[in-house]
């Protein structure tokens, strides 16, 4: 059974912070399909469309019939551990620094035999399940874990390298006014986050939820993502101890282009939803990137909460959707810029949330607890892309199937009576 992960001691100010190193990143284009599935926490392999043979490792032609038609399908992740060994040193810096490292050979029920990382709780020759996870280079790796959930299995040192688990970590929530913040704090505390800082904009305005947040034992700090000076001030003091940043800042008004008649709200949406993200990244990104190998409470993840409208827009909340599409595009640049340090960008796409600005919309809507659950679950599983709620999941599925068909569906004006 995994030893309980101990809270890190206070950092010794006389020792140098360990620089980030990374596992090998290079993959073939075919193999990136595995990373795409890992980003969403799915276990998928190529399955030959002609002869149904399951493929591994990913390839360009079927190992059985040479067909090039090898679509990715979710397949059973179960199998048996055939052999295992522990690597005690390596010419690769990343693994050298993290040895010993357990690896093994697993025969999948679906057919292929794979070389993979092995969780410490896996019994030799026992039944295992393969998790398709992103490593610190942001690429898919397979980890064999026991089929039954074990106590504290998330504390396994190899698994911990691949996730963004909040346990023993310090979290910055950027905007206290987001309606999901109390639920998010509760979920993060339950997941073992040790300190939670919550940014509070415009302290000169009354904040009805302030007292409740203060009672939850979080550290409220002035932070306004539209004010560069304010972002820089907080980053100067807290950037070096922010392990997970969750950007809850959001400016939202209904309406598309013609419903508005001016650009004032759109400017606010861009200021908060797009430039706010950029200001946070410029201020907090460098310090977080420098601390991705800093022990138990290393910096691990950057979380954006985005409207699923970012995938395909519609006029009801058209200008807000456009600002979220801009933020989504920016997050991809950020993902690449953070990747060298191993800092993970997790985008949580959500459908309409159950709060004042979506009040006229019928259910289903995403409640605060569901959003908080999706964020914490995504961090614990080390995901990059999370869909929260039926609306976002449906949008994402339709987007994956055919973006243009989705656009056609979402932009129909309706027939004249």
């Amino acid at each position, binding site marked *: 059974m995994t030893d309980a992960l101990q809270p890190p001691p206070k950092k010794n100010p006389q020792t140098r912070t360990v620089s980030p190193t990374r596992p090998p990143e290079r993959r073939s284009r075919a193999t990136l399909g595995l990373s795409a599935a890992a980003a969403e926490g799915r276990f998928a392999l190529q399955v030959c469309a002609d002869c149904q043979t399951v493929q591994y490792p990913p390839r360009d032609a079927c190992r059985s019939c040479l067909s090039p038609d090898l679509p990715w399908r979710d397949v059973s992740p179960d199998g048996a551990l055939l052999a295992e060994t522990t690597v005690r040193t390596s010419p690769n810096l990343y693994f050298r620094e993290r040895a010993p490292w357990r690896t093994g050979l697993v025969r999948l029920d679906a057919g292929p035999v794979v070389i993979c990382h092995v969780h410490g709780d896996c019994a030799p020759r026992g039944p295992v399940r393969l998790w398709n996870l992103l490593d610190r280079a942001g690429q898919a790796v397979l980890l064999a874990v026991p089929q039954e959930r074990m106590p504290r299995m998330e504390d396994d040192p190899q698994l911990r390298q691949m996730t963004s688990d909040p346990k023993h970590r310090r979290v910055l929530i950027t905007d206290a006014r987001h309606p999901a913040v109390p639920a998010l704090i509760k979920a993060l505390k339950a997941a073992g986050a040790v300190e939670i800082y919550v940014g509070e904009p415009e*302290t*000169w*305005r*009354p904040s009805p939820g302030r007292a409740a947040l203060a009672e939850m034992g979080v550290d409220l700090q002035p932070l*306004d993502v*539209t004010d*560069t000076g304010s972002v820089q001030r907080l980053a100067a003091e807290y950037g070096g101890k922010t392990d997970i940043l969750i950007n809850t800042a959001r400016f939202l*008004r209904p309406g598309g282009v013609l419903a508005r008649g001016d650009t004032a709200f759109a400017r606010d949406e861009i200021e908060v939803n797009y430039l706010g993200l950029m200001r946070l990244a410029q201020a907090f990104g460098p310090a977080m990137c420098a601390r991705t190998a800093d022990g138990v409470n290393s910096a691990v993840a950057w979380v954006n909460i985005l409207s699923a409208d970012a995938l395909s827009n519609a006029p009801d909340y058209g200008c807000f959707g456009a600002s979220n599409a801009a933020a989504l595009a920016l997050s991809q640049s950020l993902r690449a810029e953070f990747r060298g340090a191993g800092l993970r960008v997790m985008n949580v796409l959500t459908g309409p949330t159950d709060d004042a600005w979506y009040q006229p919309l019928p259910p289903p809507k995403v409640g605060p607890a569901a959003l908080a659950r999706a964020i914490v679950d995504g961090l614990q599983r080390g995901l990059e892309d999370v869909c929260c709620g039926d609306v976002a999941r449906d949008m994402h599925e339709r987007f994956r199937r055919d973006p243009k068909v989705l656009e056609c569906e979402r932009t129909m004006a309706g027939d004249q009576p």
Partner: protein
Amino acid sequence: MTALQKLATGLAAGTIRVVDLTHTLDPDFPVIVLPPEFGQCARFRMEEVSAYDHRGPAWKWHNISMSEHTGTHFDAPSHWISGRDVPLGSVDEIPPERFVGSVCVIDCSDQAEADADFLLNPGHIAEWEATHGQIPPGAWVLMRTDWSKRSGAAYLNMHEEGPHSPGPAAEAIRFLVEQRDITGFGTETVGTDAGQGMHLSPPYPAHYILHGAGKYGLQCLANLSELPPTGAILMAAPLKIKNGTGSPLRVLAMVET
């Protein structure tokens, strides 16, 4: 000596003091808050363009943004619907001599301390005139409440039923406009109207009556406690913004010591 020579001598000798009645433009300075479905007043923001670095090696400068009605600011007649057709109603059209004039300061600081919803009424003005003489035509009238000494949430003093801050009653503004022909009216609060001014008749009477009559407003003033009740000269020149309904500005007063 000409009048201006006397003025220059007084300024040089320190017998005439210049008082700054302006708050610093600061991203954290409160602005008026309207119901969220309405358009909002932009906060003051400043972005660095370069700071003697690779973005511009020998110079530092910022891009700034704000509303016409952010910080210590001037309200022109065209700010309000009642003043939309007033001639010379926007800041770029107002004759410059209107920006400089005598100023009467009515001290309501005790009443405002006792009651955040204090309303200045004609009776208070009559009392003030009994002591300091009649308000001359063309004067600026400033309502001193010491509200500028508040900061943070206490400034807007916002509760669930809206903000609570002192201001003028409709009758007082009507008296100043119709009986005293003032140039404008100024306050230390976020607007020329009381925090609960939307519940008066007409709603926001200072805005409605002043601007309908082609008069001006000044708000978010500071340091009014340093002005005498009469005898000071006010200088309040807004930026020359084409069709501007108002403008942040530096408000100065000259005071004889």
